[in-house]
């Protein structure tokens, strides 16, 4: 599924709203999981899958598909909600998130879930994987592109910077990284736990083309994807300023909801805020 820009700008807000609702219902059902980081990246991932990625939900192994790696694997509920809306997985699977023998593991598992390229969840590894995929596609003379979503706390992992060097060294320009800069990690504010600023300068110094955007404004997100495709000879990273828990006031910018699922009352209020009537 791919929408034109015009259609996308009209339809993405509603699609993202539906996905947020799915995420919260899913998390509430499972009783555990990562609320904040799923909501912060919802607009980015929704825009990516519905307008940018070339893929075929009916044929998840289609060779010509663009690839996506969810390096911040704890945003699995977001990933699953998107895959479900696109038809990769049945909607009824969503309520089985994190349950025994379900296809939706706590963190993305390529062995269990169609549409997931590789298992993630241990932070810091997705960029290396994305490099390998992008280099492999290049060798295959494929024009498919590779996208990878990183968390901001995640870039504290040293392996990210090993990979950042590799992307630039091998001039991997069929790769686009997206960094969900929501400012919070599980123990507190990123800048208090382990400062990562000046973030854009770091990526620039590592040889990347950097695009800074507001990660909740769809025009900016779509423009960034377009701009990334025009960059030759170097990898691109979109640093997207986001709000952790975006869309629900009680979750927004609250560290607590990094790794907590909504309880009954929280879900009720959240769905009310999102304009969803029935539970």
């Amino acid at each position, binding site marked *: 599924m791919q929408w034109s820009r015009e259609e996308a700008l009209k339809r993405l807000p509603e699609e993202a709203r539906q996905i947020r609702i799915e995420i919260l219902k899913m998390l509430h059902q499972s009783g555990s999981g990562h609320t904040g980081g799923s909501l912060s990246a919802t607009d980015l991932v929704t825009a990516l899958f519905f307008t940018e990625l070339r893929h075929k939900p009916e044929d998840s192994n289609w060779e010509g598909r663009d690839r996506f790696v969810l390096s911040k694997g704890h945003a699995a509920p977001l990933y699953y909600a998107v895959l479900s809306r696109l038809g990769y997985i049945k909607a009824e699977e969503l309520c089985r998130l994190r349950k025994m023998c379900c296809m939706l593991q706590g963190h993305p598992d390529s062995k269990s879930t169609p549409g997931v390229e*590789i298992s993630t*969840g241990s932070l810091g*590894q997705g960029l290396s*994987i994305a490099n390998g*995929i992008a280099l*492999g596609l290049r*060798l295959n003379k494929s024009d498919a592109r590779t996208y990878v979503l990183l968390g901001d706390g995640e870039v504290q992992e040293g*392996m990210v910077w*090993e*990979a950042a060097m590799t992307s630039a060294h091998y001039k991997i320009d069929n790769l686009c990284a997206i960094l969900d800069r929501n400012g919070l990690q599980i123990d507190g504010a990123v800048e208090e736990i382990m400062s990562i600023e000046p973030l854009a300068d770091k990526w620039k110094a590592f040889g990347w083309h950097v695009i800074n955007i507001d990660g909740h404004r769809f025009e900016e997100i779509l423009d960034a994807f377009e701009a990334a495709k025009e960059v030759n000879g170097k990898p691109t990273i979109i640093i997207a300023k986001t709000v952790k828990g975006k869309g629900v006031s009680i979750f927004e910018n609250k560290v607590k909801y990094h790794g907590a699922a909504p309880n009954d009352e929280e879900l009720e209020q959240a769905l009310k805020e999102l304009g969803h009537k029935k539970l």
Partner: protein
Amino acid sequence: MTEKKSIRGQYGETLALLGEKYKDIVVLDADLSGSTKTKVFAKKFPDRFFNIGVSEQDMIGTAAGFAVAGKIPFASTFAIFATGRAWEPIRQSVAYSKVNVKIVASHGGITVGEDGGSHQSIEDIALMRVLPNMTVIVPADATEMRKVLETVVDYNGPVYVRSSRIDFPVLYDNTYTFTIGKGDVIREGTDATIVACGFMVSQALAAGDLLGKRGIRPRIINMSSIKPIDTAILVKAAQETGGIVTAEEHSIIGGLGSAVAEVVSEECHVPVKRIGVQDCFGISGKPNELLEYFGLTPEDIERAVLEVLEKRKYSIQEKDFGRR
């Protein structure tokens, strides 16, 4: 004198040959391509060789990505850096994801020599063996290295192959066939069994010669496939020879000795003695000096076989006693 051949050299040669037939092979190294011998492939196929620099974790993650894109990645560096430094990326992105990555690591064991304990990998087999989905292979000579590579290139899944710095005596000719999950009785015998892997297969054969002078004929098994291990060949050996000595250039904890002891303790109780590095780190020295220092010589294996034979006598008496 027995012909010797470098098994890492063989890796480089075979990889370059396989590269002609298998266009999807890509090779990654972490700044040790001269030592691991991936340089041979790099010279022949520069477009399919990726030096990732001194960053083993990234090398493994990148290899996993290549596999996702349908390539057949071979990733190489020294054994301790491949399996130790990059263990968790191997666990998550290779084994858990069950992707088609081959890790072929050189400089396993203490025969690394002068570089010392920091570079001598005595833990790699244990670190890889514990991972679900991982196949672990330790070839005994250059011929077997070639056969192993020709086999694993067609096997779809994660594989760890250990090679070494030193040259190994050539034990096999071209008629030898390697099968994942199968051990090889390299010398028949009925007086205890020596199960060895890698360079220690040669040492075991020399120990067999020493024991022969005493009129003792141990069976000698090359257990190159440490995971999956050949349970049938071990049970048969236990039943027919009554005692087992394992020999490996690795810690006695977690490697071949442990794997064999696990099978024997569950399937067929006989005395087991493990020859290997006795839960300590390596030191600098010449390979031969180190083999002596760490108790990995043919004489050490000979002594262990004699001990096992003593215990076997005792355990047979005990069984008889139980019956009475």
